[in-house]
């Protein structure tokens, strides 16, 4: 690809001019254990070289734009399979990026967290392969199961699209949880680490025009009260992440929906209580 090659060369030139010694991000990227092949790509299309750029960008958002605080990162195990389950909000998935950055930058050894992306993403030019290079996977149960069997860490938002597109008036009110994550956790014997994200729910104070969304055939049509009125730039809110102790569940993964829903609700309650504590501690949305 000529354009991306040119961009990459330019990036390399700029990097060489700075003559920077290997910083934290590149050390951590090199230290990360990946099962990559002779060309530096893993089975899901993650490229070590591209990951470093992504971590650099995410790290900037994490440290400087959102000035994120992470509490309880030690609850994310350094190795072994784990499902991170978090509340989802803010019109654009910056919450996923911030959680992944926290798990990569905060613990003594970097942990790569992969999240499940929507099925339409592979049809979008550039996003189609860039998200894969950064370790994101298409959200199918097969993919998730395969990665958990390989002892990887997966981030899921059981609220899904209902969560991310919720209007400002319903901030910190969690949408009903999907049950797929719980069935996968039971089937693969994976511990669940609940994550409460405080901040993302205010990053885009939007209203949702349902009629207009239906008209254009989009899942939602959010509007924000500042230019450019569509929420592509998040407000620089302060992010606070609360990782809870791991929860383990046992049972039949193919059980009735009610049984699975009880277990999923237990996770939802834990996230809600962590959110309440976080909101009480917080003095201001922006600092």
């Amino acid at each position: 690809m000529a354009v991306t090659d040119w961009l990459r060369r330019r990036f390399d030139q700029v990097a060489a001019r700075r003559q920077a010694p290997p910083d934290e991000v590149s050390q951590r990227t090199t230290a990360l254990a990946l099962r990559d092949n002779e060309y530096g790509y893993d089975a899901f299309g993650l490229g070590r070289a591209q990951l470093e750029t992504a971590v650099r960008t995410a790290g900037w958002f994490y440290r400087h734009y959102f000035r994120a605080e992470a509490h309880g990162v030690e609850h994310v195990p350094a190795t072994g399979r784990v499902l991170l389950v978090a509340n989802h909000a803010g019109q654009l998935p910056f919450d996923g990026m911030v959680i992944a950055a926290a798990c990569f930058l905060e613990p003594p050894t970097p942990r790569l967290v992969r999240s499940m992306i929507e099925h339409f993403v592979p049809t979008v030019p550039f996003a189609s392969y860039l998200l894969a290079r950064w370790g994101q996977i298409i959200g199918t149960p097969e993919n998730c199961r395969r990665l958990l069997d390989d002892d990887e860490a997966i981030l899921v938002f059981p609220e899904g699209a209902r969560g991310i597109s919720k209007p400002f008036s319903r901030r910190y009110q969690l949408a009903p949880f999907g049950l797929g994550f719980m069935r996968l956790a039971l089937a693969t014997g994976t511990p669940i680490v609940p994550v409460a994200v405080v901040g993302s729910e205010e990053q885009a104070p939007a209203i949702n025009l349902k009629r207009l969304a239906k008209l254009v055939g989009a899942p939602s049509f959010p509007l924000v009260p500042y230019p450019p009125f569509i929420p592509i730039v998040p407000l620089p809110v302060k992010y606070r992440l609360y990782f809870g102790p791991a929860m383990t569940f046992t049972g039949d993964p193919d059980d009735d929906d009610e049984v699975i829903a009880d277990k999923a609700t237990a996770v939802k309650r834990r996230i809600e209580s962590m959110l309440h504590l976080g909101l009480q501690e917080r003095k201001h949305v922006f600092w």
Partner: protein
Amino acid sequence: MSSGDARRTVVVTGIAGRLGRVVARALHHVPGLAIHGLDRRPFPARPKDIVHHQVDVRSKKAREIFRTGEVAALVHLGLMHDPRAKPADVYSWNVAGTQKLLEYCQAYRIPKVVVLSSADVYGPRPENPQFLTEDAPLLAAQRFPQMRDLVEIDHLASTFLWKARDVETVVLRPVHILGAVHNAPSNYLRLDPVPRLLGFDPMVQIIHERDVAAAILAALAPGARGIYNIVGPGQVPLSVILRELGRRTIPIPHPLARPLWSTAFRLGLSSYPVAEFDFIRYVCMVDGSRAARDLGFAARATLRETILAVDTPG
């Protein structure tokens, strides 16, 4: 094949093609095998001990080969992939031909049938899981009716696997075969400059032609039956393959690609039907662990060797 069996003849359809010759060479190394070719094309530079029947698979003469009772196995490679041929001819050759061959095998109790299908039958789709297993639905024809023949042959062979219980049927679905072969992926990679879709760079799985021959040998072992995905040394982004081959590329925005491509095809400038476009856009990768477990098959060529195989003269 069991050594006590008197019938040691292996019939290979499509033997005169590039892949057929690779397979014939691999079979030739196995001691005690008599190789019979079945292809309507001539097979000029063949070793003396390979018997070649230059007949149509649908003909009576083809039936005679199986009636002798000496045939121990059929390896069916002889599928036509000519995008310029009339659809009705391609259908008759591929689907009706395969059906005839399977009929002979059942009628004359041929103990082993190996059909070479392709991992393409699953179809490249945006919602595909990263690795498809053998029980995934064959959806290639959903978006491209042109792929219907391939899917239908796979279905024919899979049905035969359950219908003819006394025949050991093996259906192999290899990923993109690279080498001196003249198939769509190898031909595409031999273009220079290579057109690609702007903003799309799917992971692709590739396999060396010699590894495919090795998989066929593994499938000929007594006891092997079933449907198997056959994978090569791994998967890489398409751009990595093109860089390794040192190709120049022309990125085309995908909304323009379809009309441009179909015009080029109609004018005879390109030999790629529009239907094959999604293979350079979406992921269509398979899980080969069943073949590794049951057939003990593992590709021997490395990724680099497999990629460079498209430029080696066959």
